[in-house]
């Protein structure tokens, strides 16, 4: 990979200053997506701004009806954290299904969401729980965050500092994992939240989306039967060597049913 300048700012404000000063600089969290990209020379940033030394954007705490997870919290920490296991076990389980143990020891929730890989798990986790992203500039609802293939609402210079999850009544994540990469061929998160039923899908389309027809059916009757005949439109789904769009559409319903059956 090409060389770069390396910075370890001690605060989010300092990181933002470095980012603003140099449009070719890039943030680094776990590096689990960024470093492989640099090794393959698919990107060559002038500078890496490593968020690892910023103390207050890591860890989990409860704030009223919300669970707040710092952007630099690793997948392993979310998976093992006692508060997450108690209050949102569906999210702890999702984090434990990402990649492999070594990836989970370094990769972070902030990096994963900022990257918005179409097959990543956290997009379904955040969208399905109706989470809110907190950045150095504003708050962004997950509903407004994932815009397309590797595309988010983040503006240049914007840094995710944490994610706020409303504590759900119940939630469950089901994933068909790609046997080689571990990523989701399809992943479905079903949540019963205080503001209604949410069904979020990852892996199937260019970016995570909500299966609104299933949400409406489950709101009336929270049962496997209620969503039996509901499929998402295959026209909008990914069609690649891993799975056809029609197959993905079928699997979305299968996984949603399995998730509901787990209630």
């Amino acid at each position: 990979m090409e060389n770069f300048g390396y910075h370890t700012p001690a605060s989010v404000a300092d990181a933002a200053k470095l980012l603003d000063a140099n449009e070719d600089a890039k943030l680094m969290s776990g590096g689990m997506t960024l470093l492989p990209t640099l090794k393959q020379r698919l990107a060559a940033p002038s500078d890496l701004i490593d968020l690892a030394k910023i103390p207050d954007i890591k860890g989990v705490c409860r704030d009223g009806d919300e669970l707040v997870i710092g952007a630099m919290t690793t997948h392993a920490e979310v998976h093992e954290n006692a508060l997450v296991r108690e209050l949102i076990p569906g999210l702890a389980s999702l984090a434990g299904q990402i990649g492999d143990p070594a990836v989970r020891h370094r990769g972070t929730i902030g990096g994963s969401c900022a990257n918005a890989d179409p097959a990543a798990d956290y997009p379904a986790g955040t969208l399905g729980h109706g989470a809110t992203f907190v950045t150095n500039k504003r708050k962004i609802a997950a509903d407004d965050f994932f815009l397309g293939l590797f595309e988010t609402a983040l503006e240049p210079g914007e840094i995710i500092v944490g994610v706020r999850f409303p504590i759900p009544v119940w939630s469950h994540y089901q994933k068909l994992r790609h046997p080689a990469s571990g990523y989701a061929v399809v992943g479905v998160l079903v949540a019963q939240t205080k503001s209604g039923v949410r069904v979020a899908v990852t892996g199937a389309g260019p970016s995570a989306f909500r299966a609104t027809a299933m949400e409406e059916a489950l709101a009336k009757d929270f049962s496997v039967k209620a969503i039996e005949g509901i499929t998402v439109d295959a026209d909008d789904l990914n069609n690649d060597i891993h799975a056809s769009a029609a197959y993905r559409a079928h699997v979305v319903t299968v996984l949603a049913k399995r998730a509901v059956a787990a209630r």
Partner: protein
Amino acid sequence: MLINVNMTINGKAVSGQVEARTLLVEFIRDHQRLTGTHVGCDTTQCGCCTVHVDGKAVKSCTMLAVQATGKSVITIEGLAQADGTLHPVQEAFREHHGLQCGFCTPGMVMMGVDICRRHPNADEHTVRQELEGNICRCTGYQGIVEAIMDASAKMAGGKA
């Protein structure tokens, strides 16, 4: 521009000058001449480069040397005791024939130790799941999985 790095590797304080882009595995192999840690891929998938950083298994091909500054790194060379007594996971790999050519073995053993620490008395399903990020191209995994299950049981029994 070179950057100073210092860390402990297998308990010994080491320092050096690296480029920002120098990977931890390059620092370990090329600068420190600890060639037990292997590189088997370019895509963070094979796990041959697995080492422990502050007690956790990570892929040293996907971490910068500068990111390990101030941290404690353990490589395969640091597992056995000074008198040559093997770590229980190494011993179990020998016992259960958990290797053939040996290329993946350092990574398998380092991940195996990490698995045993997190999962006392690990069952087969757990071990296979946890080996997701370590690829072996020749033994067929059977012996590897048996070795890690056995070591996990022995370590849980206080024999470690």
